[in-house]
């Protein structure tokens, strides 16, 4: 790393003013798209991501259908305008990989065996990217699944931890990810204490790795609380409104 890049100051404050163990500000919204069976939107710092669910529905092409369970198909895609330099809209090697790991993370949460011969199609569209989009993608996709009424074991929350400028930190943004030493994204089902996605990029000692995992899992638990609030928000608002009319 070049000497002139300073990601953490003497007080332990990062480039965007966060503490080392602090998440970026979140905004979660459920049911934002009318044509999808389920949808959600997330803003995590400068990340802006939409997720849409279609299905369960008939599988096309037909030969992909499985006789004993549903298939989950996932497309993670970054809009050409989501990054500083225009990104080609064709799926890149990285996007194909992320589609696969996100699919596998969510497959373990959904009761796919309840809907044989069908497919659940998930679209994750990154509108603006600032690091940690695979985790934000998992977080928002599990909200869209819940909104579509697809039965799940638990909501999946995802968050990264890593090391930059010699400090372990939570929820890395784009510069910290690129200039930093390591990045450990984790997706997690808090009620079952089950990790459904674990990747690592860079180098950490075994102790640092363990600490990074604890940090990331703690971040996931915080996100889980926000997810539940977001799911309930829509219905609680209607309920309060209706009961207010009642009271008059």
């Amino acid at each position: 790393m070049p000497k002139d890049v300073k990601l953490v100051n003497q007080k332990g404050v990062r480039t965007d003013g966060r503490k080392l163990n602090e998440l970026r500000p979140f905004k979660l919204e459920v049911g934002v798209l009318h044509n999808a069976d389920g949808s959600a939107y997330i803003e995590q710092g400068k990340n802006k991501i939409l997720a849409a669910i279609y299905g369960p529905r008939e599988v096309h092409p037909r030969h992909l259908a499985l006789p004993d369970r549903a298939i989950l198909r996932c497309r993670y895609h970054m809009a050409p305008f989501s990054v500083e330099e225009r990104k080609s809209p064709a799926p890149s090697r990285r996007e194909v990989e992320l589609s696969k790991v996100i699919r596998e993370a969510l497959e373990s949460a959904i009761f796919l065996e309840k809907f044989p011969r069908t497919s659940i199609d998930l679209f994750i569209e990154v509108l603006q990217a600032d690091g940690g989009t695979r985790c934000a993608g998992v977080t928002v996709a599990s909200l869209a699944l819940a909104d579509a009424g697809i039965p799940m074991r638990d909501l999946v929350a995802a968050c990264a931890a890593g090391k930059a400028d010699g400090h372990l930190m939570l929820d890395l943004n784009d510069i910290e990810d690129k200039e930093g030493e390591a990045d450990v994204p984790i997706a997690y089902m808090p009620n079952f204490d089950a990790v459904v996605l674990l990747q690592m990029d860079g180098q950490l000692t075994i102790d640092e790795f363990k600490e990074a995992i604890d940090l990331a899992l703690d971040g996931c638990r915080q996100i889980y609380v926000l997810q539940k609030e977001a799911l309930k928000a829509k219905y609680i608002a209607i309920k309060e409104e209706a009961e207010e009319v009642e009271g008059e």
Partner: protein
Amino acid sequence: MPFFCENRQIVTPGDVLAEGDYLAGDNTFKDDERVYASRLGLVEYKGKKVQVVALNNFYIPSVGDLVIGKVVEVDLHGWTVDIYSPYKGNLRASEALNRPFRPQRDELSEFLDVGDLILAQIIAFDRTRDPSLTTREPELGKITYGQIVRVSPAKIPRVIGRKGSMIDMLKKETRCNITVGQNGLISISGRSREDERIAVLAIQKIEEEAHTSGLTDRVTEMIRKERSEIA
């Protein structure tokens, strides 16, 4: 510790609802002596049974259900029907005609064509085959007039109400004929467009506010207000 939530509280997938000797009802599952919610909905504790009333779901066919569907294909021996479910319905010609089907003489598209709406009953369905339909009952068959509203199948029990209280009220107040398909499609036919419009509005209000209490009274009030405005 038996219960973790209050009755009719909103729960999300993964929430622990009960622990110990409890039965997992609709939209819940049991794992290691604990009952969890598998869908977003309202919890209900009924004795030993714990269930979740889902806020949104999709239609899974069940034998005996009445459904409203749209013909999407005319085949050699029957029709393929979209019943707004993950699975397409099959209506065999012999289940639609009141006499034996003669493949050489009968032109199926004369009975039902692509785009026609039908009221049908499910006669067979399991995990391995698509649902089979029948229209061989007096009230079943092609829908030729009226309007269709679509709501989430999760809200259908609310549209019907306890022992049909909501649907009876709707029929009486709007003076419309209302047929409810378990798949979320509702057919409405009234004496005037205006009657039908009010019925549609009422059903949309029920869908929106399905998880609130005192709904029947609020809907009755709304219908009466709408009526007095046009009178």
